[in-house]
């Protein structure tokens, strides 16, 4: 049986969504015996513990310290190593966020092993764990195992669905102290600049999205016009928000938001895993000049063609 320790990540004062997805996934795997969550912060809130219980955590181990108020590699590595020592897990896993991907490889180094990354499945084979990672724009699947007493892994963002179980139990809670030195605080937190969330894409039923293929700020207009006609929202990949074709607010994917609309129109989007991981649409229509674009692997419908030619015709037909 595999005792598992999950890195409990907090974002904007609630348990980060992908972390809940990891917990849900673990509850579905027979052979996972105990799900422990490590929580760190200046304060540990009761509602976080209740939420973790609803998603399958049986035990919560917390470390409270002012140095842990915001994620910084060194103090978090130190605290997590102590939790590992106290709880003796066989698997240590974190959701593949920026923080999760920073923490897990460091912990693995301290235990002299490597780690599996961005996994979308775990299987138990005999006494061992197999980690499944889609690679090369999701064209191939790599399955790995780790030679070592403790296995370390990160999940792929958006890989697991979040299902609340209202009957979920109350986890046992324990806490202990860790002391930090000046050496642990060489990198200093200055501030977090939050992107203004004026658009709630999470609840949008229809989304028209543009990628690098849109080609520029002015060219984004056709995306806006089509979204207006359909009564939907617009959205962009990171490639577009980085070059300021559109505000950061509209970005989805691994470092942006996750969406689950009824209809998603992907125009000029290649289908890079970090973007597609944020989309769970009932119907996905892709428009791209590149027949080999990975987005067509996920699309229900598609047109091979230039979005700047296709979308104006589509707009005209819908208006007519």
């Amino acid at each position, binding site marked *: 049986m595999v005792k598992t320790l999950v890195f409990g990540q907090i974002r*904007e004062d609630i348990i980060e969504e992908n972390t809940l997805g990891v917990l849900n996934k673990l509850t579905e795997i027979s052979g996972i015996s105990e799900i422990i969550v490590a929580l760190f912060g200046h304060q540990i809130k009761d509602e976080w513990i209740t939420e973790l219980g609803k998603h399958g955590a049986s035990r919560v181990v917390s470390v409270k310290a002012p140095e842990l108020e915001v994620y910084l*590699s060194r103090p978090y590595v130190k605290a997590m190593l102590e939790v590992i020592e106290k709880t003796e897990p066989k698997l240590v896993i974190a959701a593949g*966020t*920026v923080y999760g*991907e*920073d923490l*897990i*490889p*460091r912990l*693995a*180094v301290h235990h002299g*092993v*490597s*780690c*599996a*990354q*961005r996994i979308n499945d775990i299987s138990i084979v005999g006494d061992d764990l*197999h980690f499944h990672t*889609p690679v*090369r724009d999701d064209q*191939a699947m*790599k*399955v*790995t195992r*780790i*030679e*070592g007493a403790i296995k370390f892994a990160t999940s792929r963002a958006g890989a697991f669905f979040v299902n609340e179980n209202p009957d979920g139990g109350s986890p046992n809670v324990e806490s202990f102290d860790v002391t930090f030195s000046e050496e642990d605080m*060489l*990198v*200093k*937190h*200055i*501030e*977090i*600049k*939050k*992107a203004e*969330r004026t658009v709630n894409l999470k609840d949008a039923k229809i989304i028209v999205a543009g990628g690098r293929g849109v080609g520029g700020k002015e060219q984004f207009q056709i995306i806006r016009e089509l979204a207006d006609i*359909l*009564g*939907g929202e617009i959205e962009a990949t990171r490639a577009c928000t980085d070059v300021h074709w559109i505000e*950061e607010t509209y970005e989805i994917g*691994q*470092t*942006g*938001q996750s969406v689950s609309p*009824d*209809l998603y129109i992907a125009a000029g989007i290649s289908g890079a895993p970090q973007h597609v991981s944020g989309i769970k649409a009932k119907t996905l229509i892709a428009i791209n000049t590149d027949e080999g674009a990975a987005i*067509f*692997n996920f699309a229900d*419908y*598609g*047109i091979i*063609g*230039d979005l700047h030619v*296709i979308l104006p*015709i*589509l707009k005209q*037909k*819908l208006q007519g």
Partner: protein
Amino acid sequence: MKIIVFIEQIVSTQVKLQGVDYFDSTRVSEDDLVINPSSKNALEGALKLKDQLGAEVTAVCVRGLKPNKALREAIAMGCTDAIEIADETIYTDDPLLLAKVYVEALGKIGEFDLVFLGVEEQSTGSYAIGAMLSEKLGLPSVLYAEEIEVIDSGYKVGHVLEGGRKIVAMPNKGVISCSDSQYFTPRYTSMRGILTAKRAEIPKWTAADLGLSSSVVGKEAASLIEVSFSNIVIEKESYIIKEGEPEEKVENLLAKLKEDEVKLGA
């Protein structure tokens, strides 16, 4: 001031190979070998500091079928010099082993201030190398950097964070991995740079030169073991329209959506 940039050479993603064929070196020509775009972001980060502070920038390549080609391009972009580490005994598919090679390479180079890397090792899809290297070196680090500003105590670095950006301060010596933000958009090679690169002597180190044997960095030392590798067969039935004039394609799509009772619009 000395900056070391670890780069990776990959098969261009523009090359139309499917899944596992990407890893078949017999199907790849030298023209298809490029510097990993993520490594190019790291080169740009280091070269920006070279422009600003007059740093020496050394590019080091361990991974790739023809690392020498990648390193000449790095010099053509503006790096001061380059080192190739080529040895078949080094198993580069395990990020921890790669981190061990990088640590020894830094030991042989001697004094350095900053180490730059890309975020992703594209040939293995690994995002762990920056974290593993800084942990092994015991140096402070900032991963997924988006922007770097020189300040009195070191550097003010903005890095990617879900739904925003985080700003931290780090000391003068450390490890930085660079994201594909606009700030790190790589520069083109210059004519002068290309000439310098042509003449440059690029030393070639082996694992033995770094005091490493296959029991430390060879496949038998790997802790990340590949169980299987296979093409993903997509079972999803898609209706993809390839033929016809644009107007016909749109009409075809709308007709099919109507037939399948997919509603367009709220």
